[in-house]
Structures are given as structure tokens and as C-alpha cells.
């Protein structure tokens, strides 16, 4: 297989993936830090490099609405957005998943206002975590590229929409090495799309999105829930197929330095990369530390995480968003729920960090490993949720 090695930012990498996917329809409205994805893609459209019908809309609410309309015809549909854009799409996200439309968002994670910030945290897509979408967070530009291609196919297989995101500026605007596949390879991998239904078959007219009252709503929702439960079983198989085709080694949950680990950081996105680097350093000092990175956040692989983490002394769970008076960040509450009633209960502490793009440094990661060891040794006496990378 021939690979082209190039230097690309996360946004460029995602735009290239979109070009190679060559979707039928893209409806998008640009927003920092995802603007470039839309801008580059619209260039591909004007330059005739893709066959896509590009719909320039007046808002993200309209973007997702146009995507839904296009997807009901059976078209392959993509968009790109960030932060307030995801929030404005929120209403339509539920319609896309409820209608089982495999629309794809190439997202860039950015804080939600107020105060206004253009920098990274995960509050935007975490705010949509109950919308019935597959959610994948990438660690670097390579993952943003690979997982965009993977998620398009996976979405079409399980008939659910998917969002792949990268960390705003940290990935979206940072240039790094990118291994690109040939266009044909991507097309062959994606194959022919088989929509569940189409609104364009005049001989077999259908009604999409009818009003449903008390006598059927719950049954219909239960069917949708089953789709994402089934997707949880199918995604690892589909990821294995991607690995084989593209010569990669992705897992829905990645384990790094975990063989005999006593302490681990669980983190999403780019921070997992920083943590991996630090565990390599700490391993040289004889510290038994590792990293667990959920690549897929929805569906949530709680049972698998319990298996990976149950024998540790302490788990440091990092959240780049805060649900405002829940029992911790989204990753923490999900993992601790998964551990409820389990016989083994490692110490678990939640570190809320990096809101609005606040940097998390090597030293911060080292401090977390120090803190979680102390938390375990002192018998979990302090509060479980701790705010770091902040002036106290």
C-alpha cells in the first residue's frame, strides 16, 4: 500500500479526509477553530476536486437541518463545526440520530461561552453526549484523519450519525506528520452506501418523522437505543477491519504502559498523548504508571474500562469539561458508575483541567501521578473532584 507522507494541521488533515471521502452533500457554516475545514473543502468544490453539492447556509442550525434533509435521500453527508455551532445544532442532532441518518461531523472541540473563548475544552461535544451520536475524540492530526475515514463507514454500517473531533488549536492548528492513503484506497474502503430508506423513490413513497404520541413514542425510542447498544458490539469489529485495510492498530480504548501499572491516567484527546510521554519518562524512574485513552466516548465502553482499571491502586480521571454540579466530569461519572457494585474498587479521583484552552504541562501530569498515589495512600480522605491548572 502506498502512503504519502505530508505535513498537515489537524484541520487540513480532516479536510483531506473529507476530500477523499468525496461526500454527496456538505452543508456547513464556518466557525473558529473549525473554519479552515469548511474553507479548504469549499476550495475542493470550486476546484472540481470533489463531486459534492456544497450548501452554504446561514447558521449551524440550518447546516444540520440541510444535512438531515439530504441524508434522507440516501446521500453521503458531512459537515464541520465547533463550540457554539454544535450548541446551535443541538436540536437537530437528536433528529439525525432519531431518523437513523449516518451524517458525519468533523468537529473541533472548543469551550462554550460565556465567557467567550475560541480555545479548547470538551464542553461543546460533551453537551451533546446524550444526543445518540457516535462520539470519537482524536489525539493528533493522524487520528483526526484516520478516524474521519473510519467513522464515515462505521456510521453507515450501524446507521447512526457520528462526530469525530480534534482539540481546538492544540491539534486543529498544529502542523505534524500525516500519512495519507491514496484516494482510491479510501474509496474502496468506504464502498457503496446502503441507506436504510430514501425519500426519492416516487414508486414507494414514505413518511419520515411522523408525529408520534404516547402509544408509540417509547417503543420507537427503545429501538433507537438498541441501535447504539448494537453499535457498541460492532465498532470494535469495524475498527479491526479498518486496521487490517490501512495497516493501523486502533482500539476503541487504547492502553499504554498498562501491563503492570499501579496508577493510570484516563484522558481523552491530545492530553492522552502528553500523558503517554510522561509515563515513558516515569517508567524510566521505575514508576508503574500507564495511560488509558477512550478513543470512542459514545457508545461508552464502561465494562471494558472496568476490566482495564480494576487491578490498579488509583485511577486519575481527567475531564476537560465540567457539568456544573454533577458528581464530577463526564468521564469520571461514567467510569465510577461502571465501577458501582464491582468487587474491586481502586481509588478514583477526578481532575478537571484545561478549560478554555488552559495548557496542561508535563509537570501537571507528573503532579497528577503524585497526587493520585497520595490519595490512595492516605485512604481517599479528600474530595474526589479536584480542579487543576488553575490559580488557587
Amino acid at each position, binding site marked *: 500500500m502506498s502512503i504519502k507522507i505530508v505535513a498537515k494541521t489537524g484541520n487540513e488533515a480532516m479536510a483531506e479526509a473529507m476530500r477523499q471521502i468525496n461526500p454527496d452533500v456538505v452543508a456547513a457554516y464556518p466557525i473558529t477553530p473549525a473554519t479552515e475545514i469548511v474553507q479548504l473543502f469549499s476550495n475542493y468544490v470550486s476546484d472540481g476536486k470533489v463531486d459534492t453539492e456544497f450548501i452554504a447556509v446561514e447558521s449551524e442550525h440550518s447546516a444540520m437541518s440541510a444535512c438531515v434533509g439530504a441524508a434522507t435521500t440516501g446521500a453521503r453527508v458531512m459537515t464541520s463545526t465547533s463550540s457554539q455551532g454544535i450548541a446551535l445544532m443541538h436540536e437537530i442532532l437528536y433528529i439525525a440520530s*432519531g*431518523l*437513523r441518518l449516518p451524517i458525519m461531523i468533523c468537529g473541533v472541540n472548543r469551550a462554550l461561552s460565556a465567557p467567550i473563548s475560541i480555545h479548547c475544552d470538551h464542553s461543546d461535544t460533551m453537551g451533546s453526549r446524550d444526543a445518540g451520536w457516535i462520539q470519537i475524540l482524536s489525539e493528533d492530526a493522524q487520528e483526526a484523519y484516520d478516524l474521519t475515514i473510519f467513522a464515515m463507514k462505521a456510521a453507515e454500517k450501524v*446507521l447512526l450519525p457520528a462526530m469525530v473531533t480534534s482539540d481546538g488549536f492544540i491539534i486543529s492548528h498544529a502542523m505534524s506528520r500525516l500519512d495519507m492513503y491514496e484516494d482510491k484506497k479510501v474509496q474502496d474502503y468506504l464502498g457503496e452506501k446502503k441507506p*436504510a*430508506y430514501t425519500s426519492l423513490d416516487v414508486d*414507494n*413513497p*414514505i*413518511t*419520515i*418523522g*411522523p408525529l*408520534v404520541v404516547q*402509544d*408509540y413514542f*417509547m*417503543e*420507537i425510542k*427503545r*429501538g*433507537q437505543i*438498541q441501535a447504539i447498544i448494537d453499535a457498541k458490539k460492532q465498532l470494535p469489529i469495524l475498527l479491526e477491519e479498518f486496521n487490517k485495510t490501512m495497516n493501523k492498530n486502533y482500539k476503541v480504548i487504547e492502553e499504554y504502559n498498562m501491563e503492570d501499572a499501579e496508577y493510570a491516567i484516563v484522558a481523552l484527546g491530545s492530553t492522552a498523548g502528553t500523558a503517554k510521554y510522561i509515563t515513558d519518562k516515569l517508567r524510566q524512574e521505575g514508576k508503574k504508571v500507564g495511560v488509558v485513552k477512550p478513543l470512542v466516548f459514545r457508545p461508552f465502553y464502561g465494562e471494558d474500562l472496568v476490566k482495564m482499571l480494576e487491578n490498579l491502586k488509583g485511577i486519575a480521571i481527567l475531564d476537560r469539561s465540567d457539568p456544573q454540579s454533577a458528581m464530577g466530569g463526564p468521564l469520571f461519572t461514567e467510569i465510577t458508575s461502571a465501577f458501582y457494585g464491582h468487587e474491586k474498587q481502586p481509588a478514583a479521583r477526578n481532575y478537571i483541567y484545561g478549560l478554555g484552552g488552559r495548557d496542561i504541562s508535563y509537570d501537571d501530569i507528573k503532579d497528577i501521578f503524585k497526587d493520585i498515589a497520595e490519595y490512595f495512600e492516605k485512604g481517599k480522605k479528600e474530595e474526589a473532584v479536584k480542579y487543576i491548572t488553575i490559580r488557587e
Partner: protein
Amino acid sequence: MSKKTWKEIDIASIINKPGSAKDFKTGDWRSQKPVWNEDKCKQCLICWVYCPDSAITVKDEKMTGINFDYCKGCGICAVECPFKAITMVEEKK
């Protein structure tokens, strides 16, 4: 008609059968009921044009009555009839 379980429902609650709204009797939430006085009726069919539920029944271009499976009792026909041939009364069930 027995109701389907969640496992029997088509994907995304798509309705594959055109015109199936006819199977859904909408006439059971009426609180007022139109009464047609055939003697006053001049067969202008204005009620048929206005009825939002196609509940005015017509045969050979003549009004024949009201289909109470679908009439919601909105009273539009009674208001629009130029000859006061339709009056609204309280529905007694």
C-alpha cells in the same frame, strides 16, 4: 388493531404505506358535533372545500353527510355554510 412491540417497528419509525393516516381515526376527541339539515342544504359544497379533515362525504357531486370517524368538531363547516344548513351541538358520548 394490536399495537406493535418495540422490536416490530420499522427503522426510524418510517411509514412505508402511503395514505395510512386513514387508518387512524381522529374523530374521538370531538367536544362539539356538526348536525346537517338536508332540507336547508343547497349542495354548494363549500363545507367540503373548507373541512380541514375531509370529513364531508360527497357522492356524485352531492353532499351525503359527515364522516364522524374523522370529523374533529372544529365547526368550520357550520361557520362557512352560506345557508346555515349545519349547526353545532354538544357531543354526547
